[in-house]
């Protein structure tokens, strides 16, 4: 926990946020031409009901404040809304209700979507850097570092080959190296640590620690309780989109571990009292 003495500067304030996904064409047999036409002609609400648009309420009434210097872990079982919440903090997903205030522009550590498998690693480094908002000069400056860090050229001149020829591990290493090349105000990491072989994992962990030092706050989504314990001092536990617990790492992880392995004669944990009600 960040110490309470002295003024704590908030970097991220999440205020009663709901996030809803809309999924098209889920109505049985209703993904027809008439339904599509109806959607173009009719109003959105009516058309949604007709066309069988299903809403998925991914995050429900979550509130918390993150302070400068904190490293916050996000835990929860699969599909509990961790990644969704992270994307909303990054400003990449609109909120249905509530607001998210941030200091500067939080950025998600990840650049995969901007890269193209048919291009060479070299061009992908440039494209990825530009996509993350680096200038051309910055990309040129850091090019050697990125390639060196990825270790792509350790086994030959692979950086000039198309990325589709890389092994999945090599591609993952290059992607991480590109993504980690930029400095961030608020850094959001979504399961980025589990790439590459053991030696690369060690290198990437130490790079993450460096990034943490430079960044104001760090959010880390992970299913690896050990990496959460190593890096975070505060943990948010999301379950079914609701914030179930918010507190120091040890406390929350203990409760979470009891929830996920209820072998100590634990009863059905569904009914367990929610420590932090939303």
């Amino acid at each position, binding site marked *: *926990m960040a110490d*309470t003495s002295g003024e704590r*500067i*908030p*970097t991220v*304030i999440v*205020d009663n946020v709901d996030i809803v*996904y*809309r*999924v098209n064409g889920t109505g049985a047999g209703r993904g027809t031409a008439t339904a*599509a036409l109806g959607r*173009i002609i009719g109003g959105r609400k009516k058309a949604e009901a007709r066309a069988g648009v299903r809403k*998925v309420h991914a995050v429900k009434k979550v509130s*918390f*404040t993150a302070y400068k210097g904190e490293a916050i872990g996000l835990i929860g079982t699969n599909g509990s809304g961790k990644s969704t919440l992270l*994307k*909303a*903090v*990054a*400003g*990449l*997903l*609109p909120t249905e209700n509530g*607001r*998210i*205030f*941030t*200091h500067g522009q939080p950025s*998600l550590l*990840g650049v995969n*979507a*901007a890269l*193209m498998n*048919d*291009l060479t690693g070299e*061009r992908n480094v440039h*494209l990825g850097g*530009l*996509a*993350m*908002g680096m*200038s*051309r000069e910055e990309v040129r400056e850091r090019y050697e570092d990125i390639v060196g860090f990825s270790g792509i050229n350790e086994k030959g001149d692979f950086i000039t080959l*198309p990325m589709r020829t890389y092994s999945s591990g090599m591609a993952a290493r290059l992607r991480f190296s590109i993504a980690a090349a930029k400095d961030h105000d608020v850094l959001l990491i979504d399961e980025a640590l589990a790439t590459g072989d053991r030696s690369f994992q060690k290198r990437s962990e130490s790079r993450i620690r460096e990034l943490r030092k430079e960044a104001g706050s760090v959010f880390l989504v992970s299913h690896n309780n050990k990496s959460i314990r190593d890096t975070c001092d505060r943990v948010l536990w999301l379950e079914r989109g609701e914030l*179930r*617990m*918010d*507190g*120091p790492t040890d*406390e929350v992880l*203990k*409760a979470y*571990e*009891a*929830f996920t392995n209820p072998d100590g*004669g*634990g009863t059905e944990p569904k009914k*367990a*009292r929610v*420590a932090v009600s939303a």
Partner: protein
Amino acid sequence: MSQAVDTPPPPAATAPVEDPAELAARYGLSVSGARPTLAEYVGQLWQRRHFITAFATAKLTAQYSQAKLGQVWQVATPLLNAAVYYFIFGVLMGTKHNVPDYVPFLVTGVFVWTFTQSSIMAGTRAISGNLGLVRALHFPRAALPVSFALQQLQQLLFSMCALVVILLCFGVPPALSWFLVLPVLLLQFVFNTGVALVMARMGARTPDIAQLMPFLLRTWMYTSGVMWSIDKVLKNQHLPHVVHVLLAANPAAVYIDLMRFALIDSFHRGQLPPHVWAIAAGWALVAGVGGFIYFWKAEETYGRG
């Protein structure tokens, strides 16, 4: 019993009970993912200009990277397209008898039309087809449709190289008027980008539009005089005046005819509608500015599932 039951509520992390909005204002925090003002937006887009060009070039290069002939297809594809249209409209239907220099006439029409058509199609899918990118990285979303339109412009420049060869082969002499290609391309690019931005917003809300567009675009193509000369076909028809005006003001037809006027010496000024440059510039301005503002208005909603 579960541990969660026994765990005392953690010391509330948000100790000061204060309105979040006030707290945010006090420390100068801004709403995440809020829409910037129009001026800020233009600035952000300008900052990302290198990304826009790099993305367009990357897409263009990636297109044929698996083919054995590679980038040769950049020129070969438009040439084959033109050959097919020549076979159907020139040989089978005999449209060529009415038009001098029919092959240059047809090929210019096909290339210029393809530029508009592909820009609009790519624009329609610019957001809905790149949700992964939109949901992973932060950049002004207009970068995507603009980038796709730019990719089509680069594609057209390849086609123009092929076109110059065709023109020379069919005995069209090079002329100073060829330089008019540049302003025409510029105006058409602005127009295409504007329409691509409009379609990107509509396609983001209703991806189904991408299924509908090919039909609309094909109808538009047949009324734009890509394969025949509008004024020759309509000369002997008694159509209401308004139809003539509409056909003459059709932006696609305007850009196609201007390009023909610039390149083909047998295509005379008389074949152009009156005030043609004003119409061309007007369409570019209306579509470009209008499309940009229309797209910006929904900036914060792109990427919603």
